[in-house]
């Protein structure tokens, strides 16, 4: 499978600040690729470089195999993190304008199809300023994809949406994938990344820290998590042998095993202290991995 996007040793600095540091990355054609990482890690900068809004200081970016990829920009759609819509324009006019910038074909049928699909037909002739936040987010999404791009880059597409609207957009993204479109999106919602992405990429302080399928990533971390529900509270779980850390979720707890910790020993010890209602040996969730890399207590580890 060829790659839709390839980054080779890409570096971008703004003044003294290195936003992206020697980054290499391959996004296979037709995949859904999730970008995760804390705020300010370099996600948006990377996406903007792929869009040729920014140019890298060094390194090579190839899109669809082409290095001078301005020519490919029309095949890529972009949904920026902050919504950029002309408030005074009417929804349909605006969509035709945005899609028309990408495509010289007649974009109206596609615009109308998406308006209908996302339940915005009644709003087609209203001004953008009359839309709610969720609606304008959907409009922005249509603006990005109505030109039938080969690849879409979505910066935080689902943030700030209610579950119903978020599902509508997720379905739309999956529909794009089915039609062979490459999708790159960034998200802070680990659940979304876990369930939707073929591959996940994490950037932290401008550097790549994770890249692969969810299974690859979880394999790196092994099955070192115990999910636990007991009748006791966290006090009953203190100082368990072989347990490195306890995360309290209120109704349940998550224990992380230290290297060489034995889950059987832990189970026996917990049973001795209180009544166990649920005991599950699991791989760490993406959320967990994210926090281990970027959480406050992980500072030293990730520097090493």
């Amino acid at each position, binding site marked *: 499978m060829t790659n839709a996007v390839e980054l080779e040793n890409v570096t971008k600095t703004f003044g003294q600040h290195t936003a992206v540091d020697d980054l290499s990355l391959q996004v296979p054609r037709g995949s859904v690729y999730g970008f995760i990482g804390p705020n300010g890690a370099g996600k948006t900068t990377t996406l903007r470089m792929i869009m040729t809004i920014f140019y890298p200081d060094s390194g090579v970016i190839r899109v669809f195999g082409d290095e001078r990829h301005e020519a490919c920009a029309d095949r890529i759609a972009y949904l920026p993190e902050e919504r950029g819509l002309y*408030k005074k324009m009417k929804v349909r006019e605006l969509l035709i304008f945005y899609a028309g910038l990408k495509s010289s074909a007649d974009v109206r049928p596609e615009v109308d199809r998406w308006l209908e699909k996302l339940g915005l037909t009644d709003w087609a002739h209203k001004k953008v300023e009359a839309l709610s936040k969720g609606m304008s987010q959907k409009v922005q999404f249509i603006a990005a994809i109505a030109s039938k791009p080969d690849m879409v880059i979505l910066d935080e597409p689902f943030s700030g949406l209610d579950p119903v609207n978020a599902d509508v957009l997720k379905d739309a993204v999956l529909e794009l994938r089915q039609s062979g479109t490459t999708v790159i999106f960034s998200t802070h919602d680990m659940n979304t990344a876990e369930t939707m992405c073929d591959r996940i990429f994490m950037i932290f302080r401008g550097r790549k820290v994770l890249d692969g399928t969810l299974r690859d990533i979880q394999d790196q971390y092994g099955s070192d998590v115990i999910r636990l529900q007991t009748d006791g509270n966290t006090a009953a779980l203190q100082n368990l042998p072989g347990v490195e850390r306890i995360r309290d979720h209120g109704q349940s707890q998550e224990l992380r095993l230290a290297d060489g910790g034995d889950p059987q020993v832990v189970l026996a010890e917990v049973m001795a202290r209180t009544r166990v209602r649920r005991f599950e040996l699991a791989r760490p969730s993406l959320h967990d991995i994210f926090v281990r890399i970027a959480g406050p207590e992980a500072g030293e580890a990730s520097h090493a």
Partner: protein
Amino acid sequence: MRKILLLAKREYLSSVKTKAFFVMVALMPVLMSGGIITVAVMESQVDTEAKRIGILDRTGQIAEAVAEAARIRNENAIRDPETGEQTNPAYEIEIITPEEDAAAQRVALSQRVRGQELHAFVEIGANVIRPPAGGPPTAAERITYHAPNAIFHDARRWIRGAVQNQIRSIRFAAEGLDRGLINRLFNCPDVEGASLVSVDATGGVKDAVKSHEGRAIGVPAGMMFLMFMMIMVGAAPLVNAVLEEKMQRIAEVLLGSVKPFELMVGKLLGTVAVSLTVLAIYLAGGIGALYYLELEDFVPFEVLPWLIVYMIAAVFLFGSLLIGLGAACNDLKEAQSMMMPVWVLMMVPMMVWMQVAKYPEGAFATIMSLIPPFTPMLMLIRQSTPAGVPAWQPWLGLVGVAAFTVLCVWGAGRIFRVGILMQGKPPSIGSLLKWAIRG
């Protein structure tokens, strides 16, 4: 190119398809010529109430004649001869006998003026007819007009004429001269301004045309205001447009599809189209009005192509500067202070235009009109004066404007590219220049 045109079309429609646009097109000429019209309206609204003026004549030989002159004026000169409508107030003269205590009498008369019993009172000194030679004039040799706001009283001017006339008549009579003869001797024609005489194509001599104030100043002024309005209509809203795109993060979406330079040029083209639309409306209206008033000679047809060419250049020039600076700012407040230098560039021609219109061939006018940012307005003024300019100068000016415009668009394009995605502290002038030069 397709994208640039699409951007231009959106920019154009977003300006033209608003109510604000129609209001502005309608109001702009009113605001611009508002001062002139207001003055004209105010002047036609004269006070026609009769004015009672007291004359305290210490010579005893003048007041009667003034009262008689006033009576003749009230009968003959205060009505429009055609409509019979009263256009000026009547003057009623009250002859006041001098009393012994002059100071007390002045106070009493002032009191009557304050009480609005009198419009004003005039005191004529005893020696005004035959003042003694030498020395500064004393109170007895002066004529004073007393009123709360004496300087602006029209009556004062009329009184002066009537009093001086009577004094001269008395003096002529004393010397045994005939007043009618003197009048005839003093009656000379005025010196009229006229254009130069030239030979036309058939070899015949074209008669000189009588110079007209309206033609000499009105037409150049009209052309300049038209140009200024076009720049304001077109270029000024660009700041808001760019700020909207930057603040609403629209720029980021657009830059995913077009290059920054394409975006800027698209906006400029849309703006030029807006200006041309407004210009077409105003020119049609203006020329129509001049034909209606049978002043078609005033239309400087030969200068109109230059107006259009210079206007396009000026909108590009100022528009690109405003776009570049607008892109560097984060909000309107910042933008306003940043725009100051550009506004100053626009205003300079407004400050010197009188001088340029009066002496279009002078060195000052020539040099100023060849400085690129001023050329569109000032060269146009010089071209529309009756004297005109040497044929090569508009072309030289155009080359200068074109070169400067290209420079501005290029530099602004580079500032725009950096600034449009930049958030946070606005850059200094120094870093703007750095962006423009280094890109």
